[in-house]
């Protein structure tokens, strides 16, 4: 609940203030330490180190949404007859929940992953801008501020295409995880 109510920019700024400014354990922004010439594994480590805070912001945001979906779908499933049957068989509660209920509850959730595909590109826009992460987000914001319409249209086009692709993936995975669904 906290995750979906927190504006990502405010959360990002708070994290920067707490972890990067006050106790100085994470870098404020950027992707690499300035002037770094590291290659290979050292570079990877440096990037991961810089990635920590934005990662926390993005994960908290999406985990919260996912949890809500799972919860509502779980509430739906747990009332089904087969869950009662499983309980009546004398299975342990853990098995009933994780094997019988959760598996079925995850069916609608799986499809959401497909719809996340455009979100991977556009959803992180503000977070990227705050952490000065050189991704597609700051580019688009820059384009907005400079009224660079061709670039904006290009990015939107890409996102629309990804949405369609995501929907397609969602439909396909839906059929994959739920054997009841077959194309006629």
């Amino acid at each position, binding site marked *: *609940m906290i995750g979906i109510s927190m504006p990502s920019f405010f959360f990002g700024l708070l994290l920067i*203030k707490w972890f990067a400014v006050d106790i100085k354990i994470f870098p404020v922004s950027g992707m690499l330490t300035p002037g770094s010439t590291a290659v290979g594994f050292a570079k990877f480590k440096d990037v991961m180190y810089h990635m920590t805070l934005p990662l926390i912001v993005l994960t908290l945001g999406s985990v919260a949404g996912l949890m809500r979906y799972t919860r509502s779908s779980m509430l739906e499933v747990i009332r089904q007859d087969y869950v009662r049957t499983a309980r009546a068989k004398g299975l342990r509660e853990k098995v009933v929940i994780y094997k019988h209920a959760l598996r079925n509850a995850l069916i609608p959730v799986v499809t959401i992953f497909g719809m996340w595909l455009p979100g991977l590109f556009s959803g992180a826009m503000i977070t990227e801008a705050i952490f000065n992460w050189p991704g597609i987000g700051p580019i688009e914001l820059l384009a907005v501020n400079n009224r660079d319409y061709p670039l904006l249209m290009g990015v939107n086009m890409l996102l629309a295409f990804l949405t369609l692709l995501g929907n397609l993936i969602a439909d396909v995975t839906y059929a994959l995880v739920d054997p009841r669904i077959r194309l006629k």
Partner: protein
Amino acid sequence: MSPWKVVRHRLRRNKLAMVGLYILLFMIVVSVFGPIVQKYIFGITMEKIDLYNISAPPSLKHPLGTDEVGRDVLTRLMYGGRISLTVGIVAVSISVLIGSIIGGISGYYGGVVDGIIMRLVDIFMCFPFFPLLLMLAAVLSDYKVDPKYRIYFVMLIIGILSWTGLARIVRGQILSLREQEFMQAAEALGLRDRRKIFRHLLPNTFASIIVSATLGIGSAILSESALSYLGLGVTPPYPSWGQMIQVATDYYVMTVEYWKWIPPGVCIFLTVMAINLFGDGLRDALDPKLKR
């Protein structure tokens, strides 16, 4: 008991939802009456500049300090609350209006009409919400819209971009409601289509409309604040919560002058959380299938 009494009773037992409701009421009361109190009792308005206290930390005179030109942060917070809440409510009203009418027509007529409208909705849904919002807001800046009217345009844009989900929900429900007996009765009475849709079908979808509207207000406030944070939503001199956080892009403000940007952030967070808690509680209370 009447159905609404049952709902109210269930809602009252849900502690989280009630907490949400109280926070929300508090926010509304403070942002509606707060500025009046500030203006007539303390003599502080949104634009009043206190030249002796520029960027002053919280003190007795200014409980939340002042901003970079000496305006009282608490007062601006209240005005910002007015604007943010109004944007949320108006944007959602617009989207509910469009969504329920289009969903109603689409679900009632079915067939070709339904096909065309739903494909249109699909097309609308393909465009990622936030980048499109950003672009439209940027166009507003290009046309140099007066900040006074800009707020209304922002409401309009958010409303127009977010009706699709609601239209789908309403359509789905009306498709099944259409087949029920009371619609045959309405048919037998020879009612006109418009009356059937707006008097007999839409009121039955009221429960899901109100739930998605409540939750929609939360996300509208979030969109508005993100937009204003980027400087494309509500523009100065009018404050909004998102816009007040914008000063934190300055490193010095972010690290030292915390009173300028933490309170509006907390306000957004609390309000949106309250709305979500209340909306969730409302959904649980309105769902007759859920008996716990």
